[in-house]
């Protein structure tokens, strides 16, 4: 039987050996519907796709999609241009009444989608940094685009929440227990990213598509940042740079053409293609337009006081405000298409446009005492709206009157776009004066949204804003 024992030992060795070889056996290749992050950034084509992914996701991310949890809607409700038709939607009513609770799910949507967008940009920037195989030109361009999107996202976070955590890495173990950074630190990062991106990006739009960020988009956002930070000299200088690029941008005479895809007034737009190609309308279109037949679906209308502030000849009223007789409701009608699956896409969501740059330059100049130059700028906007020019009717306007006039023009020009009114009232310190007037519950602390309670439950290092 000795042989048998040897055989048995041999058998065990054979099996042990086969097991060791199994170590390699259970390694599998990644499937072709997934790409490991490091592989994404080893190839120009896939790296490019990661940037396309960010643009696509901007159309889906709650804060930027123009739909029910977007800054456009919710911050719009917080200000005095629009209101809910259905007052039983409590979570949205909290925005309208400036009575936000920390557990408001829409508020969490803004926060979570913004940080998800920041994760994507961080992941992409890290991927680029560690990659040596991507051509330098592409790397430069993509870094510029990603830095822009990150700065853009932080811009809204810092304006809506004040101090927020500054997340600059994709590593969750670092970000899990992160504390809030000061507004100044956030703005420093925004300015840094935007300066970088202005340097990295070129001035043209590939294929004429204004959904891709270019140098001017970055400059335009930075102009806004400086305006908010009250650095009027820089705000003027940067908005001036954008306005001077008049071969690329112009103020369109026909108001119905402003929000069309790749309109000459657009500096940066988000395309509905990100939703997958089933539909071709913007979310803003479907949210704001009250359908003549399916009016029961409507949820948002313009506030009467705001509608009444337009004069009859104001083209922005005739062209950008709709009316539904059955509901007796006015609605934002900047986008004309509320539901479409027709291609090619006719309208893109507007994020940055030239009119705002004129308004920035006007305000920056007015603040610096350059009244007549400021009047010229504001008259570009008034003139296009078919209004009499300030230069004609009120050339001796005082600085304060002019600044009020600019604020009023901003309201009428930029309503139902990206919460401009809310941010304007907040930064000019007029929120309490204007919003508190009609709201008995208004408190000064309402200018900041609460840090979502779910977030604070998971991360004890996050403090809450005052008043919540």
């Amino acid at each position: 039987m000795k042989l048998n024992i040897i055989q048995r030992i041999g058998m065990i060795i054979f099996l042990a050996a086969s097991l060791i070889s199994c170590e390699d056996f259970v390694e599998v290749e990644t499937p072709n519907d997934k790409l490991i992050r490091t592989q994404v950034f080893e190839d120009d084509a896939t790296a490019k796709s990661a940037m396309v992914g960010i643009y696509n996701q901007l159309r889906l991310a709650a804060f930027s999609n123009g739909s029910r949890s977007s800054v456009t809607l919710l911050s719009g409700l917080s200000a005095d241009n629009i209101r809910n038709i259905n007052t039983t939607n409590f979570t949205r009513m909290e925005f309208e009444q400036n009575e936000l609770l920390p557990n408001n799910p829409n508020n969490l949507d803004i926060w979570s989608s913004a940080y998800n967008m920041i994760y994507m940009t961080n992941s992409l920037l890290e991927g680029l940094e560690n990659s040596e195989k991507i051509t330098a030109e592409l790397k430069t361009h993509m870094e510029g685009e990603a830095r822009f999107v990150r700065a853009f996202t932080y811009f809204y976070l810092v304006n809506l929440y004040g101090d927020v955590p500054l997340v600059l890495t994709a590593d969750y173990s670092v970000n899990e227990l992160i504390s809030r950074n000061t507004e100044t630190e956030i703005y420093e990062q925004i300015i840094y990213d935007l300066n970088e991106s202005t340097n990295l990006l070129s001035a043209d739009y590939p294929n004429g598509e204004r959904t891709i960020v270019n140098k001017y988009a970055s400059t335009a956002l930075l102009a806004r940042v400086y305006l908010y930070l009250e650095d009027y000299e820089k705000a003027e200088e940067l908005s001036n740079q954008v306005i001077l690029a008049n071969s690329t941008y112009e103020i369109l005479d026909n108001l119905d053409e402003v929000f069309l895809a790749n309109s000459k007034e657009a500096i940066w737009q988000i395309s509905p293609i990100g939703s997958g190609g089933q539909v071709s309308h913007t979310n803003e279109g479907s949210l704001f337009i009250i359908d003549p037949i399916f009016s029961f679906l409507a949820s948002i209308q313009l506030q009467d006081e705001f509608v009444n502030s337009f004069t009859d000849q104001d083209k922005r009223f005739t062209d950008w405000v709709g009316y539904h007789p059955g509901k007796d409701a006015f609605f934002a009608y900047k986008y004309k298409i509320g539901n479409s699956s027709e291609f090619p896409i006719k309208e893109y969501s507007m994020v940055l446009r030239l009119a705002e740059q004129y308004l920035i330059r006007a305000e920056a100049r007015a603040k610096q005492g350059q009244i007549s130059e400021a009047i010229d700028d504001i008259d570009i906007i008034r003139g296009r709206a078919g209004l009499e020019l300030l230069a004609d009717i009120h050339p001796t306007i005082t600085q304060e009157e002019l600044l009020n006039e600019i604020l009023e023009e901003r309201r009428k020009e930029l309503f139902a776009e990206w919460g401009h009114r809310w941010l304007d009232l907040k930064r000019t310190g007029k929120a309490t004066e204007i919003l508190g007037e009609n709201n008995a519950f208004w408190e000064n602390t309402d200018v900041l949204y609460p840090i979502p309670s779910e977030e604070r439950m998971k991360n004890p290092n996050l403090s809450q804003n005052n008043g919540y």
Partner: protein
Amino acid sequence: MKNNYRRTIWVLLLLVACLFFVFTQNMLAANNMERSSFSFQQEVSGKVTDTDGLPISGVLVSLKNTTSGTLTSLNGTYHLIAPEDGILVFSFLGFKTVEIPINYKTEINVHLEEVVSILDEVQINAGYYNTTRRERTGNISRVTGAEIELQPVVSPLQALQGRMAGVEINTGGVNPGTASTIRIRGVNSLREEGNYPLYIIDGVPINSTPIETNSIIGFAGMDPLNNLNVSNIESIEVLKDADATAIYGSRGANGVILITTKTGKTLGTGLEARIYTGVSTMPNRLKLMNTKDYLNVRRKAFENDGEEPDEYNAYDLVLWDQDRYTDWQDLLFGGTAKTTNANLVFSGGSENTSFRVGGSYFTQGTVYPGDYNYHKITGDMNINHRSKDNKFSINLSLNYGIDFNRLVGNVSLNDAVLILPPNAPAIFNTDGSLNWEEWGAANLDNPYKGFFNTTNTESNNLISNLGVSYQIFSGLKFKTTLGYTNYNSEELFMLPSRSYNPGDNVTNQSTHLSSNRNSWIMEPQFIYKTKLNKLHIDALIGATLQENTQFQQQFQAVGYASESLIGNIAAAKNIINAKRSEAEYRYSALFSRLGINWNRKYYINLTGRRDGSSRFGPNNRFANFGAVGAAWIFSEEPWIEKLEPFLSFGKFRGSYGTTGNDQIGDYGYLDAYEATVGPGGLYPTALANPDYSWEINKKLEVGIELGFIDDKIRLSLSRYRNRSSNQLVGYSLPYTTGFNSVQANLNATVQNSGWELEATSFNINTDDFKWQTSFNISFPKNELLSYPNIEQSSYANTYRVGHPLNISLLYEYTGLDPETGFYTVRDVNEDGSFDYQDRIIIQDQNKEFYGGINNTFSYNNISLQFLFEFVKQEGRIDLFDAGSPYNLFERDLTTPEEEDGFQTISQSYDAYEGFSYVLDTNFLKRDASFVRLKTLSVSYSLPQKLTKVVKLKEGKIFLQGQNLLTLTSYQGLDPDLPNSTSGFRNLRTISAGLQINL
């Protein structure tokens, strides 16, 4: 007349031919006998061994019908002189007696099979090895093919309901092809998709995850076992405890279902043909109101609300015909589904080779309106060969099935229609198109919107297995199995525009889905058996290499110019939403078993497995699992033998061990980018965790098995406790990390414990009359033992620590508001709103106990078998929203409203709110226990006199009924779906058939 006459002649001729045949056969036999008396003597020698090749000494080798004979020597050999055409009889205590004709052979080697008692006769498949009821140390339930083969079901698993303790089967519904849900001893994983048991068909693992479909059964998915031929199943074994499942390592946590297909066994050739056909109908109806009562209730609502009915708030009162009545239930499921099954098997074999070739056809319709049906064609083959010296054997089995499932596409044909006002307009126009006008006039959509959508799913499945074994020397065997499976399904989902309201502007569309699953497996093994005095040793060591690949591809084609072009993608305007996903899974393992017993009295069984799986994170690729099982047959002890024959058998057994669950999705650990919904983009979809690994299930079991009165009554009682920990769940993170969770193994534990009893009794066992009863009952208990920080997880509103996983969280019903008469619920935290913090009532939705009683009677040629299934559980009921424009349960309208417990009849918003809250309260709780006559079958074997005449070996006529009777107090359609008043998943089927063997 002339024809009749001719037929008589033919019959007579046939009879004469038969008689002649019988006569000549007898003559030949007589000749044979005569010749033997003149035969010559010769020498015969050989060796007698057991099935493991071990020699048996002391076997009596005798010559039939004589007194001469000899005994085998120590090494099992014998030698004797016998007539060359004599018959040798080999007999030995504890082994089956074998007779072998000498037929001029000089060497005759024999394998004797062991037989001790009835408990030992049946070989139980334990996966890598066989055991018997007597010797098993683990818990294995078994159902034979004979018990299920006549059931008109698509997937064999559907036939197991009520037949096994600890095995809970919920059929997915009445649409053919729907995947059933199988839970062996409860739900172990917090993740719904982590609870599938392991399916093994002839040694080849089959992916048990249902296959995705866009049809109406899309929610449950398609059963991956659909393509099997139910008639080709020899047995189904379910492995439950650690002892039985640990050898499957990281895949054994949820239990293992072993399906063994039939092999050719008969000597000589045989042909078996069977056909049955049947009809299925919906057995009952909800007792809903008729038009008159319904409209009275509606009028009452307006009266109570003090409102004037108009065409908007009361289209049923103002716009619609006040006398029209449609029984929507009849329209919805009043149809008859036909089932037909034909089965043909040809089998045969010689001493060393056997084969079995079979084919079957199965078709089943649906009770729903429309032309929907299911067809299945299967082919299977099994070839078995043993070398003459029995050292080498090879076994090949192939199972191939192709099915065509034509179902309505992705449209619920259920709830919404059932509760329509009984005077609602017709669904269809007279020309068969959907009626939009009348419904549209009331501002409603036709509830059958989407009705003309169809899915055509064609799938085919090959499961093949080749087993080779070689006896290296006495006691040691090398065996290897090679398996290959291929599943492929193609689905075309057609959405013609006439399915939709012309106003919706929906174009003709189609969705195309293909799925493919491919796998191969190789399992070399060494099996060693030896006996040292009274110590028996069974050892097994083996390895597994397995690879599964799968892909799924889907796209939509829109804008076909006409309905007839749907599916022809070249004619589509646009192709959108194209998706493809693929996955590769690789798995390797080393497994072993050591079974030792002393004198067939004390048993120890050690099993273990070392697994490596590509699903685990790179830091955690390998894992060890193992179990120990022990049994003590105390009835073998001398002091207890005195109790015989009353206590004829007694065994204690127990086991403890660990198994794992690797159903955690492929590539979960990868830091990967995926395609965005928008074209051309990639984005990160989740945070990655490289430490990601399997869930662990620690199983403990003790059991006692008893046999009384010569094993006429057998009992098996088990107590088990399984703890599933290391749960792979989303570990919650703040959104500042980009996402709100990362998949990680958390220290959360789910416990399943319970009692199971299985009993069989041979009540009467005479030659003419036999009556056997078997009974099983399970008392399962499920509990989430721990889950750190559950409040912050995505399961915060799903699970509660200290309670079962299958719960519903309910408000507390606080009666009718004395002022308004509407339902009220308690606002626990008094914050003015109702949310999950107010849902303090926890309702256990598990069955308290369940089981079945099966009786089999046979009297001469007739046999009768019936199975009762019983369940004790709680359910819920709705359909009492009086006042809204929906039909409701019949109720006594003469009872004053404030007395019948229901809220004031009203259509106001407050009434709606009251009703919608009360739906989530304990108010709806009802007993939903039931006893159901699951199957009843009667069969009649044609008497031999008759079968001989028509030259049949056997003939049988049978009648089978499913779900013939249900006893329950539950008001809903089917107590098997106790939380859905209008849901159902069991039809009443009656079928009849014929079987002949040639």
